[in-house]
């Protein structure tokens, strides 16, 4: 199969907060370099950075400190975060927010005296979340997108990366193979440095929040290169995703956290409140506790018609609700639900993957030339990500990656020769569905979503996980034998659905294996057969990698390089 | 008409444009008629005589309506562009239409 070849200095995969920040920083660090962004959707219009509602954590408010932000991050992450990364995150967030405001023109909300407004977000000991109403992500990504477009960075929109291509000797990354989705053609882009910023995205669960373009492609590609993925069992569930039936894409989308905070009730299928029997904070308990409680109610069969629970706000007064949550109420109304006055069905929904590629705090990986930032990188959050640390993570490390890549690409005057055998193999792999008998990929997708939801979801145990593993293996085999109806490769969504499933199944296997390996319950990972958190002092994290075709998971002790369990960087603690 | 155009403020735009176009097409004719006076009162009178016909009366009504409509519509646009924004644009457009109709009817009633 033929493919076109291009060359560029810096290649960035993905245009979320990480990808766009990397592009800006690389251009600014060295304007001579050619910077290219390849992205699965339209620039800045896909991915989850745009979907950020709550806001951005930064220790800028008087009385707050970087140390406090750091401690909250470590404690929230149940002592699993990579401490050097977490520290880098908290420190650089300050510069990054100032950069967003002063250089990119972001509008963050202000107090009456003109200073930045910081709001409270769960799990933090200080109000430190800056925001733009409840549409913070739109503001951040729109401003980034404008700046990048003004710079005339090379754009490859609707280009899907399908393989990271190493050099023949495997010592360095040579480039990336992609599909031009509009023409269906294959392109190999050789680059001196590549940033993987495809944003993870646990969309292999029946209910999930991320955008439709995210399907774990980046992690699947990294895995195939033999890179290690850490903390892969750590999938964060948001307790209140909209539940509107199987055949609507609305299902799974987030109903904001503030609804519970403001006094909303969760009701089971019979209309009874149940949170009190799970936690003294009832509906106001943390995300993980509420998610587990709802999941337990669902398993016990006390469900609504669509199989979830209700959120009810009307006792607060429909007008009050409509005034306090205008965006949420309107969104529900557009979709046919009355949030202010009625009940809306909700369900826990897979939101964020804490796990990702093992990286250094300056975004380097084990492979020369490959950098990883944003949700694709593991380490900063450990077992649980604080609300507001996600977009901080992608923008902070994206910028760092841009600086690092520019430095490296600027001092390198050659391109590494790509391993063409691997390119051909990857193309053949991607063409598989055109060679197979027509099959039903929808049914594979449906089963995958259920397998992961039931077996490796909010509550896990060894039996369930092992059963899921068996089913995942079968789904993988079935997918490889499933062909497409339409053999025209131009803008062929069904082909991309197939490729999405391939990535999702591969990474699902990693999540399952890591979940099986962690025999305790920390943060987002809850094992019913091992409900204890385990000793903090001998905390370990998991690393999964593919070695000679086989998936292996090992445990590694957490290095408490900055603070040890029981200690604090804060004087009064 | 295309569906996206079926919206009152597009209609207001369209009426303004069509009335302006109508007036602009009528204007040369109007100037011609008045120019007849160069040849003396009688020449103009010969023409004005036509205006006694009911059909012509009705056409005059139409012209006054166009002028009034364009006038009020024009005021609306000048206000939209130069005054602080008001969310009552639909109301203003409706008022302009009604006022134009009112003026034109006033003319018609006096004419017959």
């Amino acid at each position, binding site marked *: 199969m033929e493919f076109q070849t291009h060359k560029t200095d810096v290649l960035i995969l993905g245009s979320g907060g990480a990808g766009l920040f990397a592009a800006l920083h690389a251009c600014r660090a060295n304007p001579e370099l050619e910077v290219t962004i390849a992205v699965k959707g339209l620039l800045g219009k896909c991915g989850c950075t745009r979907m950020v509602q709550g806001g951005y954590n930064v220790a800028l408010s008087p009385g707050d400190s970087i140390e406090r932000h750091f401690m909250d991050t470590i404690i929230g992450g149940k002592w699993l975060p990579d401490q050097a990364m977490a520290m880098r995150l908290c420190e650089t967030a300050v510069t990054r927010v100032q950069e967003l405001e002063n250089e990119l023109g972001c509008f963050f909300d202000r107090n009456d005296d003109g200073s930045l407004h910081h709001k409270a977000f769960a799990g933090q000991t200080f109000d430190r979340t800056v925001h733009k109403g409840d549409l913070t992500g739109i503001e951040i990504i729109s401003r980034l997108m404008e700046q990048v477009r003004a710079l005339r960075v090379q754009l490859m929109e609707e280009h899907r990366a399908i393989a990271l291509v190493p050099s023949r000797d495997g010592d360095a990354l040579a480039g990336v193979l992609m599909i031009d989705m509009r023409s269906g053609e294959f392109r190999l882009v050789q680059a001196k440095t590549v940033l993987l910023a495809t944003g993870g995205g646990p969309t292999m669960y029946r209910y999930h929040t991320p955008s439709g373009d995210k399907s774990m492609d980046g992690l699947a590609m990294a895995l195939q290169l033999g890179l290690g993925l850490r903390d892969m069992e750590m999938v964060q569930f948001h307790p209140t995703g909209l539940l509107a039936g199987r055949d609507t894409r609305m299902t799974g989308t987030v109903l904001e956290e503030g609804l519970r905070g403001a006094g909303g009730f969760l009701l089971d299928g019979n209309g009874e409140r149940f949170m009190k029997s799970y936690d003294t904070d009832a509906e106001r308990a943390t995300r993980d506790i509420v998610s587990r409680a709802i999941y337990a109610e669902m398993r016990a069969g006390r469900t609504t018609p669509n199989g979830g629970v209700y959120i009810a706000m009307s006792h607060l007064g429909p007008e009050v609700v409509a005034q306090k949550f205008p965006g949420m109420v309107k969104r529900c109304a557009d979709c046919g639900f009355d949030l202010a006055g009625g009940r809306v069905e909700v369900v826990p929904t897979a939101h964020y993957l804490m796990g990702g590629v093992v990286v250094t705090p300056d975004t380097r990986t084990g492979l020369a030339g490959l950098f990883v930032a944003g949700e694709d990188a593991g380490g900063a959050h450990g077992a649980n990500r604080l609300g507001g640390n996600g977009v901080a993570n992608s923008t902070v490390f994206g910028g760092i990656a841009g600086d690092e890549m520019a430095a490296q690409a600027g001092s390198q005057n050659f391109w590494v020769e790509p391993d063409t055998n691997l390119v051909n193999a990857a193309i053949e792999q991607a063409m598989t569905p055109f060679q197979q008998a027509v099959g039903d990929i929808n049914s594979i997708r449906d089963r995958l979503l259920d397998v992961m939801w039931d077996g490796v979801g909010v509550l896990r145990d060894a039996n369930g996980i092992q059963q899921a593993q068996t089913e995942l293996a079968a789904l993988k085999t079935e997918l490889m034998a499933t062909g497409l109806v339409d053999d025209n490769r131009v803008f062929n969504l069904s082909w991309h659905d197939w490729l999405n499933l391939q990535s999702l199944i591969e990474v699902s296997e990693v999540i399952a294996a890591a979940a099986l390996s962690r025999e305790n319950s920390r943060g987002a990972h809850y094992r019913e057969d091992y409900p204890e958190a385990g000793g903090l002092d001998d905390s370990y994290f998991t690393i999964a990698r593919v070695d000679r075709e086989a998936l292996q998971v090992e445990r590694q002790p957490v290095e408490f390089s900055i603070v040890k369990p029981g200690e604090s960087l804060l004087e009064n603690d | 008409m295309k569906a996206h155009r079926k919206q009152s403020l597009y209609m207001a735009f369209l009426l303004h444009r069509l009335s*302006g176009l109508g007036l602009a097409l009528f204007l040369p004719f109007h100037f*011609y008629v008045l120019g007849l006076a160069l040849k003396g009162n*009688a020449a103009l009178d010969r023409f004005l005589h036509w205006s006694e016909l009911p059909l012509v009366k009705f056409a005059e009504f139409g012209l006054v309506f166009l002028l009034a409509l364009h*006038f009020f519509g024009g005021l609306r646009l000048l206000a939209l562009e130069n005054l602080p924004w008001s969310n009552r644009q639909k109301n203003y457009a409706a008022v302009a239409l009604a006022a134009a109709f009112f003026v034109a009817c006033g*003319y018609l009633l006096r004419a017959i």
Partner: protein
Amino acid sequence: MVELRLYMAQRATAAIMAPLVLLHLGVMIYAIQGGLSADEILERTRGSLFWGVTYGLFVITVSVHATIGLRNILREWFRLRGPVLTVLCWLIGAGLLFFGLRAVVAVVGLP
């Protein structure tokens, strides 16, 4: 910045014409009573400085205003561009101005 100039000219002429048109509408409604006659009209206007200035100003402004308006229509609905559009518009404007001033002379007389 052709379009900005044209915009300014069109809005300025509209603003000037507004009171003139209002007056015209008023006079028409007043004068139409009992039918129009040349004598009636010309008696009012002949040799009148006021009507001379009023109608003269109206003709000048409307020539500018209507020409710019027609230009928009020709551009947008008839897709005319470039020299064709420019020449046509100058002709329209000049025509309106000439016949308009001629009409003013006819009803008011030469100064």
